[in-house]
């Protein structure tokens, strides 16, 4: 498999602000790649570097092996679904979708036929005559998708594509996007700050923090084996143990993560704490235990006894489940 997108030591600085700082990245062709991170972590800038709306301060970007340093956005065969969709308000849906073909000089009949085809693909047949203002949020999102796909790009970039949708619609669109990507065999690169979305949709993902990639890998890698405290904190809901606490549990003096579902409450153990909060989740109860400065969450499955708030309890688990990691 060739790499669709490749970053070699890429930086993008805005004055003193290092939005992207020395990123190395390879996105395989045909993959569904997610860039995850809190806002301001550099993920959107990376996306804009691929589409060409930003130029790297340093480093090199290759798309399908070709250096794009001198290629303006309109000559990159890469298309974007914008966060706010950026539909052209003065054009109807059909002309919005056909826009990419129009500027390439495709004849009217031909490009309209192609646009209808694309609208069918996103299940919006018959909406061609409407103006964007007459569509719902989900429909706009699909128009944006159809518009980006009409040019048959080699990489499709999606900037928080589902951020503006309500929960139900978002879940449905997640499935649809995944199916679409599978069907088209395209490389999808999408940016999100929602770890569930990233974990459920991507086959590979990069976690961004302060302009750098904190970890890159499959969703399992990231979730089960966070490389740093930050990743553990940001992705999923793992407990982060400071080195002293790790040692108290019998591990080396190093930062470690501990998933709540394998954390158990016991009558006795090396570490005890006070129950400070209880949250019923349906499938179980989340119990928060304070020990020293650290709060540790444990997931007690339904049917098992739950300690009362304020009581003291010990924490126990299989030491093998401790995942050791770096400082940041």
């Amino acid at each position: 498999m060739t790499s669709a997108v490749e970053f070699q030591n890429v930086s993008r600085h805005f004055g003193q602000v290092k939005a992207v700082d020395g990123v190395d990245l390879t996105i395989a062709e045909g993959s569904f790649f997610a860039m995850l991170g809190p806002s301001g972590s550099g993920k959107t800038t990376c996306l804009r570097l691929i589409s060409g709306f930003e130029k790297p301060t340093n480093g090199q970007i290759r798309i399908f092996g070709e250096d794009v340093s001198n290629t303006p956005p309109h000559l990159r065969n890469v298309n974007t679904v914008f966060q706010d969709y950026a539909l052209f308000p003065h054009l109807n849906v059909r002309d919005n979708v056909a826009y990419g073909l129009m500027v390439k000089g495709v004849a009217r009949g031909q490009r309209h036929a192609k646009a209808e085809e694309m609208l069918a693909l996103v299940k919006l047949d018959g909406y061609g005559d409407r103006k964007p203002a007459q569509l719902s949020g989900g429909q706009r999102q699909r128009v944006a998708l159809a518009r980006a796909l009409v040019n048959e790009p080699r990489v499709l970039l999606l900037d928080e594509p589902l951020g503006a949708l309500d929960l139900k619609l978002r879940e449905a669109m997640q499935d649809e996007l995944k199916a679409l990507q599978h069907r088209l065999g395209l490389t999808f690169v999408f940016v999100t700050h929602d770890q569930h979305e990233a974990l459920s949709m991507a086959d590979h993902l990069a976690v961004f923090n302060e302009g750098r990639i904190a970890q890159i890998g499959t969703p399992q890698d990231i979730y089960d084996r966070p490389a740093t405290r930050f990743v553990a904190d940001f992705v999923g809901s793992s407990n982060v143990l400071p080195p002293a606490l790790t040692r108290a549990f019998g591990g080396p003096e190093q930062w470690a993560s501990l998933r709540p579902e394998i954390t158990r409450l016991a009558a006795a153990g090396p570490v005890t704490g006070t129950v400070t909060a209880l949250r019923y989740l349906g499938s179980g109860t989340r119990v928060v235990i304070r020990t020293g400065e650290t709060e540790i969450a444990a997931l007690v499955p339904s049917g098992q006894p739950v300690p009362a708030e304020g009581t003291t309890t010990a924490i126990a688990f299989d030491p093998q489940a401790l995942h050791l990691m770096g400082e940041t």
Partner: protein
Amino acid sequence: MRSDARNDGPSLLLKITAIGGLLFLHLPILFIFLYAFTTEERTYQFPPPGLTTKWFAVAWNRPDIWPPLFLSIKVAAIATVMAMILGTLAAAAMSRARFFGRDQLSLLIILPIALPGVITGMSLRSAFGIMDIPFSTWTIVLGHATFCIVIVYNNAVARMRRLSGGIMEASADLGANSFQTFRYILMPNLGSALLAGGMLAFALSFDEVIVTTFTAGQQSTLPIWMLNELVRPRQRPVTNVVAIVVFAATFVPILIAYYLTRGGSETAGMGK
């Protein structure tokens, strides 16, 4: 329940003051209308001694009205076109990322209307003098375009601010070059704002007298003609007739400008 009053209509006091204010704005216009029909020819007194419609025919047949009228239209048209070009360019530059001197540029654009016209006029006149530029239609245009730029600029900037910023990038992303983006995306979206700005600029130029007196040289625009007529009237009601005709003629473009800009704000909410 005092707090429920918020959804009530306007209070009576507000209604009276608002409508009273509007009437105040139209009171003298009423008299302009009235005195277009007076039989008194040179100086006015109230109430008018008699009424006649003959001044409309007289105005139509006065050959000295037409050249200033055409000159005013010509000057306003050229000044508006120049202001539209320069105002749009300035607005486009300002809509881009921050750059050095951006604040100074915005101040500079506003300066010609923020400074009194007598200063603009006098400066231009002394500059024409220093550079030995003879007065012509173009010197009038120069003065008018200078203060019309800001009108177009303001309309364009307001519209650009309302436009979803992404659509220009979306266009480039879809393969359009800058010129295609300008033609297919920017112009259709900016067009009505520019047109509205252009109409206001036209009206402003058409009625301008303060700067024009300094830059006109030997030619007279319609307001200069009016000034001469008012200062040395032969048939004073004729100026009122002209004012009424101009008033009626501006009614339609102003209404169009209103609907054009209003339409823009209604679509502004889309995007998100």
